């Protein structure tokens, strides 16, 4: 592992976002300026942080968009979007890059390149905890919150699929092949919704609330982490994880905070709040593990879209680029 660069921001690094080409990385700290590292120019620029603290940032139509606890979405051209007064944490671009989704209270604002928001989902039954775009259909989005998950086709008045389980889902990840939607629950459990069977498998037994969910790029495995244990479920069988034996991997020395599979190398990176970075290589049921101790707790991870380069955001505000080729 080679550290390519390290950069300091003002606060705990909440979120990292590569642009689609992998030439720029947006580093969003909890408070203070958002930093943009340019790999081509080997330079850094900043964007003023949001009042009251930052939410996620995203690359939309080639430009950086930021959000925050002041309830404002800011665009690179200086314009902004104010869809309400509630705080904004989640900001995501759909699979073909044409739509930007913004979760704010009971709204999922959906805007196009001209900031038209006609496809927004309004007055949803519960606040949007998280949402996920369908990687195989840019007009489909899953919204999770109290009750469970609702899957929408933009422009339709009713969700085309949903599951309510009596509890609530805190995060959502859609598999790259579009078959599975995995939600991390308020309780120590996940729901894995199979679109081919319209069936939400409820997996319980985690020691803590599931903090991270990550799919391999070929959708054959999904990693979930809770506390100090990573559990990787196979999704290749007819019923996916149902009845399957997962891989359970230890290694974290604190609560896991981030997990991501590399599209380039297939490796699974996991970070914890004790500052341990784990790189797992999965070969069937065989697991190779490398451990790296960082100087600060790890807040977030983001693999480069096409190279084995990992961006690591730390609790002390620093962000490092690691070459894991």
């Amino acid at each position, binding site marked *: 592992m080679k550290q390519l660069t390290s950069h300091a921001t003002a*606060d705990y690094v909440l979120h990292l976002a590569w642009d689609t080409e992998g030439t720029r990385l947006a580093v969003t700290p*909890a*408070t203070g300026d958002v930093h943009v590292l340019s790999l081509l120019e080997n330079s850094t620029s900043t964007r003023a942080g949001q009042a009251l603290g930052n939410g996620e940032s995203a690359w939309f139509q080639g430009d950086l968009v930021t959000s925050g*606890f002041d309830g404002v979405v800011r665009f690179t051209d200086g314009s902004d979007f104010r869809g309400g007064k509630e705080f904004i944490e989640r900001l995501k671009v759909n699979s073909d890059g044409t739509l930007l989704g913004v979760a704010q209270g009971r709204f999922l604002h959906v805007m196009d390149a001209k900031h038209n928001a006609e496809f927004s989902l309004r007055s949803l039954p519960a606040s949007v905890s998280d949402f996920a775009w369908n990687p195989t259909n840019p007009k489909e989005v899953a919204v999770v919150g109290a009750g469970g998950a609702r899957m929408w086709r933009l422009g339709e008045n009713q969700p085309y699929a949903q599951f309510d389980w009596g509890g609530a889902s805190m995060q959502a990840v859609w598999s790259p092949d579009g078959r599975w939607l995995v939600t991390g629950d*308020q309780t120590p459990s996940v729901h894995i919704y199979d679109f081919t069977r319209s069936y939400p498998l409820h997996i319980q037994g985690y020691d803590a609330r599931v903090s991270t969910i990550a799919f391999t790029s070929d959708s054959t495995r999904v990693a979930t982490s809770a506390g100090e244990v990573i559990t990787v479920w196979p999704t290749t069988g007819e019923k996916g994880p149902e009845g399957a034996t997962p891989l359970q991997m230890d290694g974290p020395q604190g609560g896991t905070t981030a997990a991501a599979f590399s599209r380039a190398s297939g490796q699974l990176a996991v970070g914890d709040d004790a500052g341990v970075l784990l790189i797992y290589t999965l070969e069937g049921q065989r697991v190779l593990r490398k451990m790296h101790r960082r100087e600060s707790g790890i807040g977030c991870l983001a693999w480069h879209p096409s190279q084995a380069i990992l961006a690591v955001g730390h609790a002390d505000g620093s962000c490092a680029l690691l070459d894991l080729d």
Partner: protein
Amino acid sequence: MLGMNTTPVTILTGFLGAGKTTLLNRILTENHGLRIAVIENEFGEVGVDHELVINAEEELFEMNNGCICCTVRGDLIRILGNLMKRKDQFDHILIETTGLADPGPVVQTFFADAEMKERLHVNGVVTLVDAKHILAHLDDSDEAHEQIAFADVLILNKCDLVGEDDLTHLEGRIRGINALAKIIRSTNADVPIPAILEIGGFNLDRAMEIDPQFLEPEYPFEWGGIFPVDRKEGTLHTTIAPDPTMGIAMFAVSGADAFAAATEKAVRAFSDDPKHVGPSGTLVADGALAELEIKSGPQTYALKFGDTSHVAVFTEHHPDEFALRFVTEGGTLTALVEKNFKPDHEHDSLITSVGIVHEGECDGRRLNEWLSGIVREQGADIFRMKGVFALKGQPDRIIFQGVHMLIDAANGGPWLNRKRQNTLVFIGRYLDRDSLREGFLSCLA
């Protein structure tokens, strides 16, 4: 110890118009030197200074058993999780709930979610009450009763709009719902900031400091005394009449040392229907409850003691309120022994407080089973529970607290110079004092 090295959270509740926004403005602008995050459900006209005001939508999460008692606030978990990551940590977090919101899910969030418990602790629940309009709310709103029941501190605001008698009456009604809360009177929400930020409401020691008498049993009378009598008859005089009637029971006793037995007899007497005694009527020392009709101005009733050397007298109100005098031909009688009793409050609400204090040691297993059974069967109706226990084989104090079905216990450290005894408080709906007491006694080792 509970709350060590964690950030305190104060929950501010109260009906719309009670003065929450005014209070928030004071907190945001006063130079208290603390970095405070204020989380609001609804944006009001609150000025943002160097503190943080964040708007949250209300979002209820139920645990997967679907029980309403386990409902927590998911939006709070997310906001607080973010705030806890920041470099500049907050000294205090203040969460304002909407006027009609049940504060239960907010409080439960800090009990039910492991991450929240690790980093935050509930300092207390502050309920603002509009002194002028709360009586109307109490008559027609369950939410008003529940907000009072949850409170550690009740700020009786807008007191300038209400007379002293009405305030006293209001406090009595509030005490009937929540005997534990500290009541602060205010105008324009002008209360010392420490009263809000340094509550220690989930610290039982602090709670006891607020009203050390609240655990005393309540009686249907405010006063009792034993008089020596040297005649068979006498007269009872009143000169003022704050109320048109007053309950009174009189009966023969052997002497001053019979006061405890007389008190028990009086409790039974006060549970009967009273017989009416009109102006200039006669009160007999027969142990029956009488209801004196008292008109303003000097009033006299005949007293018939019978063949006894002492009589015990118990009165619904304190004798001073009516300027009561017991007189025989030998002169005005003076009580050999007398006592003021904690009167039972106006239990117009189904929500009441029950306190239990008992020396001795508890059997940990039995206590756990008993408490588990209570929260399982009555959790929906129990708003707050607090307790300090002396467990057999455990040298330290065990502190316990709970909200609805969620309970939490911790080592409370050594007893030091405190009395080693068990103290337990319930605030809830349909509480059966005798049953709770009996249940607790069954846990003694």
